[in-house]
């Protein structure tokens, strides 16, 4: 079972957190800090598994993570999950984000936390892997988007919303955020 999914950036700022077991709010924050501390001090080419921190449940739990550009994706799982399987699942999740947001970057996650949650919900449910087929996941997300559009509320493709933010010309967005830099590099799918 997946106990928690944490996404944070290189500075430890949480971008999405999802706990499938109840933890009090302050405990959640402690877990995020501890996990960041454990993961961030590791080199990039060491292995992607490490034994879970003390907070989240001792040695039956593993942290399985991937580091993409500015973001860490960390899954905390118990021994009933296949390590490599989860590693691939993270990849599927990120590729899906990439498809839905058209070149996903950290800003997309910041401004569309809700969207990211919805996409994650199509992949993981109550701590169990729900769907692993990217096309299926994307199809579900598209159904949602269509319903949104038909309701005329929030919407348009997420990418457009991002561009809205990017073009909003809000002076408060720090200049040093270089969108090109923080693009998550996702290997493109090779054609069959």
């Amino acid at each position: 079972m997946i106990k928690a999914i944490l996404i944070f950036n290189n500075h430890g700022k949480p971008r999405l957190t999802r706990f499938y077991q109840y933890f009090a709010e302050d405990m959640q924050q402690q877990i995020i800090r501890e996990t960041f501390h454990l993961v961030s001090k590791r080199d990039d080419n060491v292995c992607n598994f490490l034994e879970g921190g003390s907070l989240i449940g001792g040695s039956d739990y593993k942290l399985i993570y991937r580091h993409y550009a500015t973001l860490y994706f960390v899954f905390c799982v118990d021994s009933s999950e296949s390590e490599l399987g989860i590693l691939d699942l993270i990849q599927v999740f990120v590729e899906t984000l990439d498809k839905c947001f058209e070149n996903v970057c950290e800003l997309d996650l910041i401004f569309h936390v809700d969207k990211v949650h919805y996409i994650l919900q199509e992949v993981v449910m109550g701590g169990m892997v729900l769907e692993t087929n990217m096309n299926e996941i994307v199809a579900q997300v598209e159904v949602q988007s269509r319903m949104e559009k038909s309701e005329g509320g929030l919407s348009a493709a997420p990418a457009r919303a991002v561009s809205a933010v990017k073009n909003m010309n809000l002076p408060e967005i720090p200049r040093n955020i270089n969108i090109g830099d923080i693009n998550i590099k996702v290997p493109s799918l090779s054609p069959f």
Partner: protein
Amino acid sequence: MPAVSKGDGMRGLAVFISDIRNCKSKEAEIKRINKELANIRSKFKGDKALDGYSKKKYVCKLLFIFLLGHDIDFGHMEAVNLLSSNKYTEKQIGYLFISVLVNSNSDLIRLINNAIKNDLSSRNPTFMNLALHCIANVGSREMAEAFAADIPRILVAGDTMDSVKQSAALCLLRLNRTSPDLVPMGEWTSRVVHLLNDQHLGVVTAATSLITTLAQKNPEEFKTSVSLAVARLSRIVTSASTDLQDYTYYFVPAPWLSVKLLRLLQCYPPPEDAAIRGRLSECLETILNKAQEPPKSKKVQHSNAKNAVLFEAISLIIHHDSEPTLLVRACNQLGQFLQHRETNLRYLALESMCTLASSEFSHEAVKTHIETVINALKTERDVSVRQRAVDLLYAMCDRSNVQQIVAEMLNYLETADYSIREEIVLKVAILAEKYAVDYTWYVDTILNLIRIAGDYVSEEVWYRVIQIVINRDDVQGYAAKTVFEALQAPACHENLVKVGGYILGEFGNLIAGDPRSSPLVQFNLLHSKFHLCSVPSRALLLSTYIKFINLFPEVKGTIQEVLRSDSQLRNADVELQQRAVEYLRLSCIASTDILATVLEEMPPFPERESSILAKLKRKKGPGMVPDIEEGRKDKNVNGGMEPISTNATTKSTPSPSTDLLSLGSSPALSSAPPSSSAGGLLVDVFTENHAPAAPGVPMGPVADDNFSRFVCKNNGVLFENQLVQIGLKSEFRQNLGRMYIFFGNKTSTQFLNFSSSVICQDSLKTQLSIHIKPADPTVDGGAQLQQILNIECVSDFVEAPVLSIQFRYGGTLQNIAVKLPITLNKFFQPTEMTSQDFFQRWKQLSSPQQEVQKIFKAKHSMDTEVTKAKIIGFGVALLDRVDPNPSNFVGAGVIHTKTTQVGCLLRLEPNTQAQMYRLTLRTSRDTVSQRLCELLSDQF
């Protein structure tokens, strides 16, 4: 890029997020957030009804604030309102907020359940999915109660959409985890199992997860899933990579489903049916063969997916542990991975090999990789991988390679990560003991361990070495010589001083013949370390000194002088001072014979589970430490060492005591035998009039501190002191009762001559009849003893019986007497009656001696619910709407005794202003009224 109109997207949200990101300091951020929270709060509280869009926007903002680590204590109600919206996006955000922020015991659950119920029956698959997600994510008991019956129906219904089936399967799985008792499978079992044949692979994957969990709990019921799983797996494994279309991931057909199916099969032994078994073996071989084929893609995803399946197949092979050829092939495959350039694969290979090492078929094959593993220990850059290498070395160790492995581990220890040092120390200590070829090597190894990583050598480790040296006389001389030499080092670890002090105190005489280690030299050497040590070590050294006085009369003068010095006799530490005083006195007045008896060599320790192993198990969690000896089922030929090491692992005492030498209870150590009451023996020396309390002496004071707590409840702790805890559980029906008494030994020492009895004084003998089943005469350290009392109430009674226990603890007899909370009200049967009945009977019981009334001050806060609970706990039925004044409490019941039954009515009138109560009881017997009134009035 198309321009975006202002109404598109939630601009307010984007602006807020940008503001936050722009904050220069944490303080500014908090300020901005508080401003926003105030804004949202006022919007939610405001008179103007918010439209769905605004609610959605604010809930979104709250989610963002929560993500930043701020508590959100409002907005839940608005989120719940969104659930019943007809607009999908509003519903969606409502559900999101609830699954992120609502915990399972929120009081909103009922409202949420209503919304879920509507969505589940909506037949709109998207809505149904949202609802199922919410159930799975929150997973509370109330939700399980509300929906456990519906979800299996949705799961197996013919017209359910695939995506809903998937969600339903996982939802059911979640509920089964949180409230297994509420999810009855029975009738659904076979239909759920048949989901393994479903067309849609997503459904099959979800169903496999569900079935795996259910099968772990109830293998028999889901046995039929084995053949279906094998068939499905076989179809996947042999399919061309394009057959499964979307479920082919980087040329690997349905890797997740394969992994899940292989996991499911690990819930069962190898299939008995030869055909199925053959088909499964074929699958496993195919998977192993594919590993040897050149990769179809250079992408890491391809290799990950392929190897995920491969590792799971290997796990299954190891689990079945029945086909030697497959096991050896698996081992070779893992051997290849040990040298793979992907760190992840090396890590997993080490991990899998650990389990493989415990199979007798492949243990030898695993051992051939020892050099590679040792190399990994030396060269891996990643501590996670090195740790796995340590685990594997530990698992593959046996008598043939123990010296090499222990040497390598010690080597590694010098540079190891601090985080894993303690674990390595424990492992080295265990291996050295278990596979010791000779015990001189063992002693060397442990001393080395202390030298290299003294700080990480826990007490268990050095207790153990002492235990072994004491139990084996062939190693004592060597041990004394070695510790003596080790102590010569100018700086040695305190643990070494402890081991050295203890061993020289016991066996220093064995090396005293050599003038280089004469008694005086030994003493001076130890005493030179004395001032650098902590108090417990100093205490231990003082005990060594008194032992020296016995061993070497020639140094008596020197030692007495040391003991007599102000720094000992007037030491600020009570323990040290006491030892100095007592030892000095002992050495002065006791004759040589008494000294020799008191300070005799320690007797051999009883065998028990190695405390080190117990510690490692605790550290890693049960089941994480492969019990090498048992797991491998191999027979070590070398039997000479067995009595000490291997027996110890199979035997288990009720509580694997860490306190090997019984030293733990006081930090100061005494090597005087039996050390549990060092004072006790010395008292014998100093005083003549010390007579142990004889059995049968009149009882001391009777404890009744907790007595009144049991008037309204039946379970709890009755008595507790430093040695023993007495707990109770009791049940009563009519005039009969049964009471379970639990005696817990809180110490690590056995209680001897344990006996207990129940004493009924005077008239109580005829009123209550109590039968007690005799208990064991010993209670092990840390263990619990249970005793059962059968009670019969013959007639009404006032006094309470007394429980009296006696036992011998460390040489002194302990007497404890406690009032047993068997009270008259325990024999109540509640009686329900109408208002009319109640008042009719109330009037019938109107003679003055039948009524007892008491007015008293409230001792506790006057909480209505607590009061109700107490009255019900007292045994009567609490009658609603009988008393015209709703704040009064009215109850009725019948006391059952063997001879008669006594009806009883009561009324309690609280006066909150005055903090007073008036309690009125009417029964047909004045003694009963009186007693019940006493008992109950004491409770408020």
